[in-house]
C-alpha cells in the first residue's frame, strides 16, 4: 500500500474536541489541536463570538511509504458563544503540548446599588 501524503489537496475541516470547565476564577476552554504552530493560530473574539482557526503541520513528507494512516493534515475550526458572565477584555490564551487553553475570567459583579429613600 503506497500513499502519498501530499496528494491530499484539500484538508478536511475538523472541530477540535473541547473541554469546558468552571473554576473559582472563571471558565476554561481546552481545545485539542495537535500539530499547530502557536504563531499560526488565529483566535478572534468579536462581540460574543469566539472563533479559533489553525492548520496542522505534522511534517508528513512525501517519499515515505505509509503503512498506517490514522490521522492526516487538517484545518481546525471552532466557534463558541461567550457568555455574558465573561469579562471579554481579560480573555487570555496559551498553547501548550498541542492544547489551546482559553481563559475566560468572570466579570466582576457590580454590587447592587441601594437607593435610599428619604422620608419627607
Amino acid at each position, binding site marked *: 500500500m503506497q500513499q502519498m501524503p501530499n496528494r491530499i489537496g484539500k484538508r478536511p475541516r475538523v472541530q477540535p474536541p473541547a473541554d469546558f470547565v468552571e473554576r473559582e476564577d472563571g471558565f476554561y476552554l*481546552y481545545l485539542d489541536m495537535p500539530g499547530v504552530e*502557536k504563531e499560526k493560530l488565529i483566535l478572534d473574539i468579536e462581540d460574543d463570538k469566539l472563533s479559533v482557526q489553525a492548520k496542522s503541520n505534522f511534517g508528513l513528507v512525501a517519499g515515505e511509504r505509509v503503512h498506517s494512516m490514522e490521522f492526516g493534515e487538517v484545518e481546525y475550526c471552532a466557534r463558541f458563544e461567550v457568555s455574558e458572565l465573561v469579562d471579554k477584555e481579560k480573555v487570555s490564551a496559551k498553547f501548550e503540548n498541542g492544547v489551546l487553553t482559553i481563559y475566560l475570567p468572570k466579570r466582576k459583579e457590580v454590587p447592587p446599588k441601594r437607593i435610599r429613600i428619604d422620608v419627607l
Partner: protein
Amino acid sequence: MVINYGSFYDFPHLFDKLMNDLHDPQPTASRRATFPPLYISEDETNVFVRALVPGAAMEDIELIIEDNTLVIKGELKPIQGKYYQQERPTGSFQRLVKINVPIHKDGITATMKSGMLFVQLPKSTAMKPRTIHIQPR
C-alpha cells in the same frame, strides 16, 4: 432440465444470517476506537511512528522497545474544575506497534512537538541487501 440457482441461491441463508445478526449485540462504534492515533511510515533507512497525544507532556509518556514491538503508553490527566462539556480523552492509554524489520535499537530517537510524538527507528544495517561479487577462478 437445467436448474439455474443463479447468484440468489444463497439468498435465503444470507437473509437469515442478516436477521440473526440484528439480534446479536453490536460493538458500540466509538468516535475514536484507538488512542493515540498513529501514522506509521518508512523510507530506505528508517521506520517512522507518529502519534497524536495532545495534552501529554514529555514525562507523561513512556516508550519501550522490546524485541520488535514499540510500546507507547502514558496517561492523560483530567483537568480540575466543574465540567460542562467533555470531549477530550482522559485516562491511561497504551498502543503496541509491531515493527517487522530489524531495528538498530541504540539509534532510536523520539521527539515531541505540539502534541505529536515522533519516533524514528533506524533500520539495522546488517539487513541491507549487499551485492556479492563473483570472482573469476
